[in-house]
């Protein structure tokens, strides 16, 4: 861009973006941008939007293409060299299964959601930022598919990821999260996704998977992670700008934004419950414990952020204290749930071995030995007797976050937390005060939730028996589900590692189990 001597960079970028729009006179602006008012956010001057990054389209093409070339050459090399055999242990692959079925579809949803916001905002500044993010998110879902495509060829559980995302019980947790954000208006969407999710919680969602890949020898996924890192930092910058812009435009926006921050912090935190179990149980080589991550990324970094936002009248999100109380139990409660219901999940679970239990004891000195180790030891003893236990009673789900009601009272880790609300003659159940408040504020929205367990009982999921439901999920019984110990994945892994005899024993167990 050396043609120009007189405009500075900022001015030039403004000419190249916001100066492209005009004040319409043949159509009403409110017809061109029909969604800018209904959420109650007041914007007086779209030009006050500070562009969080200044990237012209030609520069974007150039940088991104370079990153793509590097990434694909590594993905190709990985496939050619059977890089999947270099991971620490085949149990690790289960974290990737959770990622492809639970997280990659959210990248796609973000792509579409930011396209909507990029079309609906009334100012070119945010339009362009959102459109850039939209196309980045498409990049992420597509590069994730291409990275994991190779794993799909050698491991079970990946083979029908999008079909599963629309149907399988625990995947309604991430799906409903994004459906919730996208079915709101553009301002709530960016508060939910750009701010609460990307800015406040990315280090607890995206990064644990990528660090997990790095620690566990998964060169393909970690390369994707590095390649996406600069995109992610652009998205985080957008998240902060969005919030500041709304707060600075009109003080009437403050309580609305605070309400959204409260809601989306809690929605995001509940979604992260899946990540907590991944960090503490699914990585053969662990990066850090969920508790340590929550302390570092939320309590310290998040705390500093909200101190900074206090000058706008924004306080810490409601119920953050509960997340601190839960940090020593969250991952254990969730992993136990999947251990219970693994016959209906598209990844394997297992009882942690003694060294892993020792790690959990060290990381969770106040809870693990007291509450969870005895549980695992009991399950292990049943397995040793050849009676690996699965729970055949379907769980009650929280109407808001859609996680089974397995969380415990904030001040009592031995009592399950139940909350409920009555609405139009029906009773609705919640896992927490956070989820109950969200429902009570928008009951007409949350009564619509497609709750997987309700749907099974209503006969909408292929039938009433587990095999019928699994078939409807496209989940292959005996291949995708159940304990890792008796899995084809494990048998194949042992065979590939040259441990043929053990592989044969496992395969027999697969047949018998």
């Amino acid at each position: 861009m050396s043609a120009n001597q007189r405009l500075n960079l900022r001015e030039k970028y403004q000419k190249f973006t916001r100066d492209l729009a005009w004040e319409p006179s043949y159509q009403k602006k409110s017809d061109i941008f029909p969604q800018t008012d209904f959420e109650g956010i007041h914007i007086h001057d779209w030009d006050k939007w500070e562009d969080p990054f200044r990237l012209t389209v030609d520069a974007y093409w150039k940088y991104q293409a370079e990153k793509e070339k590097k990434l694909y050459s590594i993905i190709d090399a990985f496939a050619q060299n059977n890089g999947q055999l270099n991971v620490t242990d085949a149990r690790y692959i289960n974290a990737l299964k959770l990622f492809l079925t639970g997280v990659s579809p959210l990248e796609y949803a973000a792509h579409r959601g930011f396209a909507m916001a990029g079309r609906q905002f009334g100012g070119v500044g945010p339009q362009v930022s959102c459109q850039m993010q939209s196309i980045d998110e498409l990049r992420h879902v597509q590069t994730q598919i291409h990275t994991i495509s190779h794993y799909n060829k050698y491991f079970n559980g990946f083979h029908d990821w999008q079909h599963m995302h629309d149907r399988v019980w625990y995947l309604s947790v991430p799906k409903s999260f994004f459906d919730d954000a996208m079915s709101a208006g553009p301002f709530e969407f960016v508060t939910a996704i750009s701010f609460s999710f990307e800015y406040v919680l990315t280090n607890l969602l995206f990064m644990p998977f990528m660090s997990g890949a790095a620690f566990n020898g998964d060169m393909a996924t970690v390369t994707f992670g590095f390649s996406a890192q600069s995109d992610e930092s652009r998205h985080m910058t957008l998240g902060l700008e969005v919030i500041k812009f709304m707060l600075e435009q009109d003080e009437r926006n403050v309580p609305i934004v605070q309400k959204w921050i409260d809601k989306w912090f809690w929605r995001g935190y509940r979604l992260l419950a899946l990540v907590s179990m991944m960090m503490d149980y699914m990585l053969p080589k662990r990066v850090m414990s969920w508790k340590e991550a929550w302390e570092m990324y939320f309590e310290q970094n998040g705390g500093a952020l909200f101190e900074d936002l206090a000058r706008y009248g924004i306080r810490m999100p409601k119920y953050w204290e509960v997340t601190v109380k839960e940090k020593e139990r969250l991952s254990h409660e969730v992993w136990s749930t999947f251990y219970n219901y693994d016959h209906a999940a598209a990844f394997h679970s297992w009882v942690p071995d003694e060294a892993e239990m020792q790690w959990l004891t060290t990381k969770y000195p106040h809870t693990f030995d007291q509450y969870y180790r005895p549980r695992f030891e009991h399950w292990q003893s049943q397995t040793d007797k050849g009676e690996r236990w699965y729970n055949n009673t379907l769980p009650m789900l929280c109407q808001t976050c859609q996680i089974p009601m397995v969380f415990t009272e904030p001040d009592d880790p031995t009592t399950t937390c139940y909350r409920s609300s009555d609405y139009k003659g029906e009773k609705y159940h919640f896992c927490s005060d956070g989820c109950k408040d969200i429902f009570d504020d928008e009951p007409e929205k949350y009564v619509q939730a497609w709750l997987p367990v309700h749907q099974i009982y209503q006969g909408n999921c292929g039938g009433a028996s587990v095999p019928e439901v699994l078939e409807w999920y496209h989940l292959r019984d005996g291949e995708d589900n159940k304990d890792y110990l008796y899995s084809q994945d494990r048998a194949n892994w042992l065979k590939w590692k040259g441990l043929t005899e053990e592989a044969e024993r496992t395969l027999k167990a697969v047949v018998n189990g």
Partner: protein
Amino acid sequence: MTIEIKTTSVEPLRHTFDNVARRLGADKPASRYLEAMYDLQPTANFHYRPYWDPDHALYDTGRTRIEMTDWYVFKDPRQFYYGTWTMARAKQQDAAERNFAFVEKRNLADTLESAWREKAARLLVPLRHLEYAANMNNCYVAAYGYGTAITQAAMFVGIDRLGIAQYLSRIGLMLDGGSAESLDAAKQDWMQAPVWQPLRRLAEDLMVTRDWFELLVAQDFVLDGILYPLVYDRFDRVLEQHSGSTISMLTEFMNEWFTETSRWVDMTLKTAAAESDANKAQLEQWMGHWVDRVAEALTPVAVEMLGSDAGAVMDELQTALAQRATKKCGLHVGEPAPAMAS
């Protein structure tokens, strides 16, 4: 860590994802385009009706009158997914960058006769606003369209159009010596000069068009199908006659881009038309409607660009578009309306 790999023992369990295998009819290796395109968009079990459109689901086939039994019969002949798209554009921007640098280094903009430099700026630079509308319209298709096959391609086009708007802005800066005066004057014209008003009206009307497939037809087939040959071919020839190929070098990106993108647009319309007579009739009705609007809106601009040839050229371009519709898309639109230019 060393691993002993026995080649026979790492036979793959499957060759692609099941959804792709179902569509290909067999489990066989699939291209990256197909694996990253098929079925990406959720189709079932949506949780909440959108506040902004309670009559429809989050993704809903009912946002257009076009009906398809399968929205993944659409294929992009360019096989663009993010990686191939961005690498193709990076190559083109590299060529464009060299052209801009060449023109700048040799001060070619200064060698243009001032009347023609002024004319080029006056007639090219306002189009950056029209490109912005095209950006918004394609973004609309990407946001509210159905099926990743179409929506991802529309998103690429949307970003392409922002890029073209920025190239046109750079041309303005090159022609005005970097002062941005040409951009300011172009905006003034776009808002007020009679020659641009029918086009601006058209742009605003497109931005409130709610049926996303109609918008795709109107913007990407009809408007672009006449605008691009008019500006980057016919007007370019006039400029070339009077002032050499300087401007052509700066608009080469647009020319190449249009030829390439038309392949996707044609295939999209052809596929929708081939689905049913109802689709075909709907597409033809939209085309007929928007061809008249586009001809009316572009005629004053064509007159400015081409003088007394404008009427004949507009007829030719409409005839060419009708032929393209027939030949490439299997659609029939009427003869061009009598030229409105004097």
